[in-house]
């Protein structure tokens, strides 16, 4: 089996990149793990989010903005191609605050960032009463919110399904239930799977989520990636209760209220815990008291794919040129950028985005 690109990992990151490469006429093979694999792409919160991103690295804020700006077009194209819409709403999102102090501190940080972004950071501060006009169900404990107009949310599972569908439709090969164990480069790349399959490709993209930590060094990457657990709740389907999403809660297109998420350093453990669920429930009720009567239908734990500074890593291997590490902790937000902008970087075209700040050189050798 031969291809221009072999993509290791068929989560939202790998599939977005595969989609972009296929659009450019490349021959692509995606290799993905089994049913029980850790998959952040299946357990995330679905925000297409700009605010608070890149507080210390304006390039990351800009990259998120670029992706958010082309997300709608991207979603529409996927919907047209597959006949299944990818629900997306980009009418702004909130950072809700329970104290004036935290609200004020955040505003100060946003102002600094705004200046670094030449003023392109459209947000406004809503006091409790202004917020209540927008969100009639907001609770008395919420003192106010930052409404950022570039924020929004999508249905991440529909995105994943549409990508899986369209990658195949465009002639991509997807091999499911395979685990890559090694990659060598005698001439082209040879990708070895645990079941004995060997795949040949001119180039390789390592987008295996947490799997990159183990495979990365074999390809000459540092891949300093760690899991961080996020527990997420979803309620029964409810009548409209929340207009705009926040990091605390959002109402999904199917009607359920999604509540998230914990940040826990517990290694490769994706279980849910009663204290985790209770804490999230309490916070959501503080924000929207009507939720006290809502039934929690499901919960899950998912593992974030985190680099030490939380920023994406885009790196071509110094030892094995033609191998690229692509990983990030906002794969939904950045899906559009990965599909439409990143291929230029891998193909070294004139339109290639400048991703220097996201290279691995920023991490000291440990």
């Amino acid at each position, binding site marked *: 089996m031969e291809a221009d690109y072999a993509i290791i990992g068929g989560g939202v990151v790998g599939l977005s990149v595969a989609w972009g490469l296929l659009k450019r006429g490349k021959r692509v093979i995606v290799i993905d793990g089994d049913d029980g694999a850790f998959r952040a792409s299946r357990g995330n919160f679905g925000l297409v989010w700009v605010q608070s991103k890149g507080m210390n690295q304006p390039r990351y804020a800009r990259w998120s903005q670029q992706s958010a700006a082309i997300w709608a077009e991207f979603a529409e194209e996927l919907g047209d191609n597959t006949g299944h819409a990818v629900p997306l709403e980009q009418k702004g999102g909130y950072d809700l605050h329970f104290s004036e102090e935290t609200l004020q501190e955040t505003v100060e940080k946003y102002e600094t960032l705004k200046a670094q972004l030449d003023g392109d950071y459209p947000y406004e501060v809503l006091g409790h009463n202004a917020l209540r006009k927008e969100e009639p169900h907001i609770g008395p404990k919420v003192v106010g919110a930052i409404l950022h107009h570039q924020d929004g949310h999508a249905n991440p599972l529909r995105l994943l399904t549409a990508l899986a569908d369209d990658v*195949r439709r465009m002639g991509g090969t997807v091999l499911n239930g395979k685990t890559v164990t090694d990659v060598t480069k005698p001439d082209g790349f040879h990708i070895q799977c645990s079941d004995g399959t060997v795949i040949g490709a001119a180039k390789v993209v390592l987008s295996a989520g947490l799997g990159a930590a183990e495979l990365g060094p074999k390809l000459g990457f540092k891949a300093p990636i760690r899991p961080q657990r996020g527990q997420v709740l979803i309620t029964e389907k409810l009548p409209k209760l929340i207009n705009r999403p926040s990091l605390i809660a959002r109402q999904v297109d199917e009607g359920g209220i999604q509540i998230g998420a914990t940040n826990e350093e517990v290694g490769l453990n994706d279980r849910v815990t*009663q204290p985790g669920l209770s804490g999230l*429930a*309490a916070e959501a009720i503080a924000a929207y008291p009507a939720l006290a009567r809502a039934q929690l239908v499901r919960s899950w734990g998912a593992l974030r794919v985190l680099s030490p500074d939380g920023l994406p890593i885009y790196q071509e291997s110094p030892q094995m040129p033609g191998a690229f590490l692509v990983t990030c902790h906002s794969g939904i937000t950045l899906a559009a950028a990965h599909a439409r902008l990143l291929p230029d970087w891998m193909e070294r075209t004139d339109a290639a985005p400048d991703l220097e700040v996201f290279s691995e050189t920023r991490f000291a050798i440990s």
Partner: protein
Amino acid sequence: MQQNDLIVIGAGPAGMAAATEATSHGLTVTLLDEQPRAGGQIYRDVDRVADKRGDILGKDFTYGRTLTGGLRASGTTHLTGAMVWSIEDGFRVSFTKDGRAAQITGSHILLATGALERPMPVPGWTLPGVMTAGAGQILLKQSGVLARRAVLVGSGPLLYLIAAQMVRAGTPPMALVETQTRGDMARAMRDIGGAMRGWPYLVKGVRMLATIIRARVPRYVGATDIAIEGRAQAEAVTFNVAGRAKRIACDTVLLHHGVVPNTQAARSLDVPHRWDDGQQCFVPELDTWGGTGVDGLFIAGDGAGIGGAKVAEMAGRIAAIRIAEAVGRLTVQQRDARAAPLLRSRASDNAIRPFLDKAYPAYQPALTPEDATIVCRCEEVTAGDIRRYAGLGCLGPNQTKAFGRPGMGPCQGRYCGLTVTALLAEANAQTPEQTGYYRIRPPLKPVTLGELAMMDTPEPDAAE
């Protein structure tokens, strides 16, 4: 928080027998069940009902009073109306009772959560007026409510039992549409040796059939192409039998083709399960005592594999004896002496199973339904959708969840899990074992956010 030696979940025959036995050895036991009164599925509400309808329901039902009486006399703490929604390692059991969430801890857990009726997705099975046969029986048992114009559809001993009970209640079903064939019975005859060891079951079976035949309930054996017609409500059952199309107008359709273990709680604790070809379902992997791979966690009753009420009762006691030994209340010799007769009679009671499994197999077209049939009732996902997700690379049911939401509604896959596994296995030419099952997470059943939030303790000791 009170620390129990044993927490038993489920107050059916397995749970009642286990709790009674364990308490008798001096263990601190708490028994929880979401039902308002002890009994489980077979002995549902037996204390309130036996005097009123004992003659209709039969001796096998009123026998349940022995167990409820024993439980009461034992002094076991029995929390009724307590719905368990989370079990965590350690063990920490969270439940809701009277609209409030609470928690208990224990060093051992016995899951005695019983069985569910095997999902029977046929066209029209989501219409009002279509129920499981067990539901029809529960209406009769618990509430004295009986369908006036009902057709029973499917196969298995429970179908005959319910039909016979309806006859005795004075409102026989309009017809029995049976899916097993004469060929199935011929194949089953090869296991007649085992069945003879379980002869009392055969005698009961013959008696039930005699009751049904005497009441002149029409029986259609070997039915295929079963569908339910109706716009807003079931109006008729249609099917083919011996090459002829039939239609029976009715108000109520009672579906049944066997029971399967309710594995939700066990799966939430990552207990390994294996596929049982004979029973066409997943069963937890257990040792003789009901012990799972998870330390301190035991399973007894139909949740451990279908064996029926007597086997459930014995298995409950066997597990309790093992746990009594584990906490030092019995020596190994005492344990073995006490368990030996139970182990023997459990084996002989189980001997009938291979015969029954072959004589009354599941209705094949409902295991892998045609494309248009809904398989996930909650999210309204069809068999065709599942096949399409297989085409998109879904090897297992956790991927289809992400692609089309089956198993993500409030029932959490209880009535679609086996079907989705079967459809994926068929589409990907894999075994059900390779295909696997939904990952089950707390809450085992929905719980309000308000109840959850009430348990929010800002103490730092939290789980991890």
